[in-house]
């Protein structure tokens, strides 16, 4: 069974609110930039940046980060497809907001922190996620959350963004459906 968590209208509002919260908590926006995690976080980071840039009155740069090479389960699963990493700025001394679609175990975020550290030394890293579904396996939490939802391990969250060919909805689905 599939339960709609966010429809396109709600998605737009959530993204807008997250952009406002990021602006509110980062009064100095001169060094602020967003880094979306491949793959679902990249389009989301661009959307947030669009709203955020309007709020603060100047463009907020966006990067894309693939964390495949930093995962802690590489020998235990089929080698993942590596997507492009394009961070068009030096992260050192930057105020970086990592953007991902779903926060689950926290292992992707951990890998992203390592990957970013290899690129420089940001002044601060914050985390923004569209959906927090719980079940953390590491001491990681989001600074900006679109929607928090209680899930079971037999469920999955499907984020279907327009940019990736979806219909701009977020659903909870049963894994074997």
């Amino acid at each position, binding site marked *: 069974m599939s339960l709609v968590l966010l429809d396109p209208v709600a998605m737009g509002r959530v993204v807008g609110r997250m952009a406002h919260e990021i602006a509110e908590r980062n009064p100095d926006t001169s060094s602020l930039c967003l880094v979306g995690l491949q793959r679902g976080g990249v389009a989301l980071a661009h959307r947030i940046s669009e709203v955020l840039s309007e709020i603060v009155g100047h463009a907020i740069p966006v990067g894309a980060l*693939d964390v*495949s*090479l*930093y995962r802690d389960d*590489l*020998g*235990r*699963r*089929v*080698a*993942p*497809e*590596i*997507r*492009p*990493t394009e961070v068009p700025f030096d992260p050192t001394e930057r105020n970086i907001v990592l953007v991902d679609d779903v926060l689950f175990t926290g292992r992707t975020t951990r890998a992203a922190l*390592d990957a970013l550290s*290899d*690129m*420089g030394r940001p002044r601060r890293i914050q985390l923004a996620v569209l959906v927090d579904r719980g079940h953390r396996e590491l001491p990681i939490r989001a600074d900006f959350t679109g929607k928090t939802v209680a899930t079971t391990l037999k469920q999955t969250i499907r984020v279907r963004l327009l940019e990736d060919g979806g219909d701009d909805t977020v659903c909870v689905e049963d894994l074997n459906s």
Partner: protein
Amino acid sequence: MNWNRRHLLDVRSLSADELRLLLSTAKAFKAVSTRAIKKVPALRGKTVVNLFVEPSTRTRISFELAAQRLSADVINFTAEASSLKKGETLKDTLRNLEALNADFVILRHGASGAAHYLARFARCHIINAGDGAHEHPTQGLLDLFTIFEHKGGVEGLNVTILGDILYSRVARSNIWALLRLGARVTLCGPSTLVPKVFETLHPGVRVSWDLESALRDADVVNLLRIQHERQRVSAFPSIGEYASLFGINATRAGWIRPDALIMHPGPINRGVEIESSVADGSQSVILEQVTNGLAVRMAVLFLLNGGQSSELAQ
């Protein structure tokens, strides 16, 4: 598309999808090599053994650096200074390396089929780094990658491989990779080194002993080194005669289309198969091949390291 092999033994058995996955993974690793920190932790805690029973410097260095860039530990094992000289069999050598918990064994060996032989009982991953005149898979893959970068693909391209085809594992790996993705291959050189029988490999292979037409038709010209160490009988009277009949000098380079690539797996013999003006010319991608070799070898190590979806396929 998932990678589902434990070993990389040849190019011939790779599907078009597997080749494309290797190319796209190599592309990602090429980008890694341009970062300030070129090392990633993907193979942290893994041990890679370069088992080079036949000497090689550039392939070994390339594999060694690839493994190091992936944070693996690397041991170099060369035949001259090893127990193989004391009479140990290849199988026992592998068993000993596995007893030390080697995760990857990269084998260079003078006998065709040596890597396949080890793979029959190996618990670790075996990578063929050249076996006799059979195959040199990562060289074939890096050549394919280099052509893709410049031409966007190989389908419909004419690739001329020139030189010592008979004794060349590089030629064979190139032939299989190119044919699988739809290129046409022309083999050219002295008839003693380019027997007509190669045409029976595949309808896409043509043998030509006419250098001028083979060069004029080509989108890519891949020059091979004359492997005097692998020739049991002399296939041509002298190096000088080979150079005068088949060496690419400025005149013959003029037969090559201006948009065609000139490749060479190295080490190049300046003045034999290629003159300096051509090797260092604008159409030469010889040094790019070296750079791409590193990315391709990182991709191979990374893909083989992944777990299997259906346990231990192949």
